[in-house]
């Protein structure tokens, strides 16, 4: 069995590489007029990281697949330790402790935790062979994601911590759980929101009962769902009422930073102005005025797509979301045809992570979703993020490669 590069999915890798290069070009433009010499070298640093990420990608592809499932649990343990450590001794930036400072690079263990949780659930599902509806299977997999999620929520980093339930739900779904059950499982949260006004809550509860009656998911499960819905719906307004307005405001700003009009709310306005003013063909490379005039903060990371939309217009923006969509289609196809369960779960979970970040980030820049601070995979500035995204692609490509081997 010899390794043959020709069998790799080069169309997929090419699309990912194209996005990464577009990212570097846009990062260069976003900092072109910056006063800080350091910021002007962001593009160069990203280029170095891209080289590293590509090496890591090749390493993942060349490694025997066994190595990943064998190391999953160990990696999971290490990631938990790192998350606890970063809370204790990590570097604090803007009130959140997410980074370890390692000389010139700082590194965030949340990315490792994502990978570890993904591999751990994939391995657990692939080898315990419990039925999709087994209570033990649901409970253990939930615990696997809740631990790192809570630690990341404490940093606090809402956006990243939401990636964990996404991995869990994606793998529950992919391993055979009906999507309607997923709806029922998250229903207490919907109940919480609906309970803000009694009439909407009543309508929601009736709908829930009809839904349960038609789905018939088992008595104990149904009762559990109803009790949780009632409890969440009744307690929340009670607690909410007891809070002073400034406390409510802090919670709202935490859940949706766009709520704070001088911070993230302002960013969204500027992002929409930047994209909209780009028009169909864009203002041209290095010609974006919104980015240049410092209107758009975080323009090299979270709002990189706004810079892109302003300078390259609808055409450029469509190329980028088109490349992403192509990548996701390709990845999902690979996940569907993997013979090994572990590989299939890993592929689907990795795709879900990338898709979630893509959807949340672009949705945010277009003003369709709350501001969560998730970067755009492959395109946004950020070394560890780029590296992790490429490793995920490596896992997917490797799974495909091995599929072709057998």
């Amino acid at each position, binding site marked *: 069995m010899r390794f043959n590069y020709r069998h790799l999915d080069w169309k997929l890798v090419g699309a990912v590489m194209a996005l990464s290069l577009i990212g570097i070009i846009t990062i260069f433009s976003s900092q072109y007029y910056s006063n800080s010499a350091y910021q002007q070298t962001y593009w160069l640093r990203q280029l170095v990281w891209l080289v590293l990420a590509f090496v890591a990608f090749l390493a993942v592809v060349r490694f025997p697949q066994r190595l990943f499932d064998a190391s999953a649990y160990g990696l999971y343990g290490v990631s938990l330790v790192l998350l606890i450590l970063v809370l204790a001794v990590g570097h604090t930036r803007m009130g959140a402790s997410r980074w370890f400072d390692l000389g010139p690079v700082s590194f965030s263990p949340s990315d490792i935790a994502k990978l570890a949780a993904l591999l751990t659930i994939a391995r657990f599902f692939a080898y315990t062979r419990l039925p999709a509806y087994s209570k033990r299977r649901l409970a253990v997999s939930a615990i696997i994601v809740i631990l790192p999620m809570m630690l990341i929520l404490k940093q606090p980093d809402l956006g990243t911590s939401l990636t964990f339930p996404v991995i869990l739900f994606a793998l529950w779904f992919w391993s055979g759980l009906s999507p309607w059950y997923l709806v029922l499982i998250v229903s207490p949260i919907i109940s919480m929101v609906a309970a803000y006004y009694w009439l909407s809550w009543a309508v929601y509860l009736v709908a829930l009962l009809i839904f349960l009656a038609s789905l018939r998911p088992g008595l104990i499960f149904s009762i559990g769902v109803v009790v949780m819905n009632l409890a969440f719906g009744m307690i929340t307004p009670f607690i909410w009422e007891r809070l002073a307005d400034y406390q409510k405001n802090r919670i709202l700003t935490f859940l949706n930073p766009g709520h704070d009009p*001088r911070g993230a709310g302002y960013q969204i306005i500027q992002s929409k102005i930047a994209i909209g003013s780009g028009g169909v063909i864009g203002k041209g490379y290095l010609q974006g005025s919104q980015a240049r005039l410092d209107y758009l903060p975080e323009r090299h990371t979270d709002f990189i797509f706004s810079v892109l939309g*302003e300078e390259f217009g*609808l055409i450029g923006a469509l190329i980028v979301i088109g490349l992403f969509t192509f990548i996701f289609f390709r990845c999902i196809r690979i996940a569907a045809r993997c013979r090994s369960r572990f590989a299939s779960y890993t592929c689907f979970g990795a795709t879900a992570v990338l898709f979630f970040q893509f959807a949340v980030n672009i949705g945010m820049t277009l003003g369709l979703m709350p501001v969560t601070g998730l970067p755009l995979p492959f395109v946004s500035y950020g070394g560890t993020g780029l590296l992790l995204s490429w490793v995920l692609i490596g896992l997917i490509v490797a799974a495909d490669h091995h599929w072709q081997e057998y």
Partner: protein
Amino acid sequence: MHKTTLSHIGRLQATYVVVTGVFVLFFVGLIKLQIFEHSELATLAENNRIRVVPIEPRRGVVFDRQGRVIVGDRPSYTVSVVPAEERKGLTIPHLAPILDLDTTQIRRRVKRNAASPYQPAPIRRDVPFDAIAVLEEQNSEFPGVNYQLDRVREYSVDLRAEAFTGHVGEVSEQEMERNPQADYRLGSTIGKKGVEKQYDDLLRGVEGTAFIEVTALGEVLGEYKGKERVPPVPGCDLTLSIDNDVQLAAIQALDTQDQKFSNMKLQSDSAPIIHRAGAIVAIDPRTGEILAMTSAPGFDPNTFSGMITDSMWQAISTDPAHPLLNRPLAGLYPPGSTFKLLTLGAGLESGVIDENTTFRPCLGGYQFGNRFFKCWEKRGHGVQNSIHAVEMSCDAYFYQLGLKVGVDQMYRYAMLCGFGKKTGVDLPSELSGLMPSVQYYDKRYGKNGWTKALVLNTAIGQGEVLTTPLQLAQFYCGIANWGTVYKPHLVTKVTHPNGRVDQIEPQVSFQLPFSRSTLAIMREGLRLVVEGGSGTARRLRNNLYSVCGKTGTAQNPHGEDHSWFVGFAPIENPEIVVCALVENAGHGSEVAAPVAKKVIEVYMKKKLGLLEPQQQPEPMAQVGAKELRP
């Protein structure tokens, strides 16, 4: 059962649908922004700017117990400069004389906003209207300058309430760094002291925001239609336990017309009223509610509401009369004879004496080793039991009692009575005072460097021991309330902007370490101080109500003795504890006792329905900056 489970192919197709759906959603979103809203957004990008203007919320109002406004606000104008629109060499030099500031001060304030050059940087609050009229008329002379209607905090000057209201001011950069999660902004008004600081989170409310569209030249086009304004959320209103009549009585009681009690030289003798330095605290012992609190000399908190100039700040902060010292909770004084009640309680409770115990007679003092410790009464008090020792405040008796109790037990009981630690009143910057322990003496004088002689001084409230007027009032609240001490507090009610009202319930803080019989003996001593034939506060006796208390004269190494009185009324069922301290005024019985009496009297007369209709206080300036200083 799981008939709804999707097949493998079904799941694959469902996933494709989701990915395609998101693609279509983003496609539509892009078309909407880049084709349909393109021209509008392009104009915004090229010519106009969105200026984010904060809308200040109404800061909560502070009421007294009768519902009268102690702290409210009034409309005023704030002038700001937008850094990016300011014309160098034109805007700031033109603005400086109008705002009565110098150019460097303005420049410093504009510079602080450098990080967000399109947002207005507040330069000066509470700008007089004629200055605004000039800015309005000669608009073009002031590029980048704008003004808006704001509110400025207004304090009732009559009540001289700054000891507990505190004041507001502009948030400092350190405060912003210390609270990264609070929504402070450069120029935000926050509470700096007192209730304003303690309850800032409740009072402040939540800032709103307006999005104003302006041209590149700074011309305002109106609100930006693309984003709705966020209305501000007003702050909560607070109701304090302060009783207007008692508070007025307290501030008037400290003033005197008798030149003898002035420690300041007067410039002209046509101003007969002398403002004495000191503190008064009145507490309802049944709840811990503070009825009155004052610190003299004080300052005018309105000074800080607008923008305080450096010279004004210099004048207040370096005033030798310390108007910024909040005496009731941050002034540290030896308690003097008022502390003898603690010594008595410790002696009775630890069993070293009973109420009838007598010691060697007082012959004007007590010989300890080779040193003679004087009693305040040079003629001596002879032999007496513990109750009469309190009545006459005989130092010799308490020297001997202190020796029997010892340093350790004195310390233990004092700590259990709340000395040497904060009372936990709902005000910031309270001090804990000092109660010396064996460890303290060891550290200060060396392991064998001190003798029992020190406990003689502690026993009569002299030497190292330091208390705040609030701590003493708290201790006497415990005696008045048969041992149960409620946490002193000011806020009794929080009214939220949505109408919800939170009542703040009284909270038991601790129990005095004394049995009911011990407390009965202590109270009998206090009663005789007023009603006994040789009591030190006989002049408080009256036909209307019963009152008791203890005088104190605290030796002060820096000048004249401080004068103390702590007492309560009515004796049978006490409703008010008053602690009065007059700095450098001499004997407690001569100065502080009559001061406290005026406060107690107003409360009791009011209770009995004998209070004449509201006496208005004579209008007088704060601080006494003009009157007091030569």
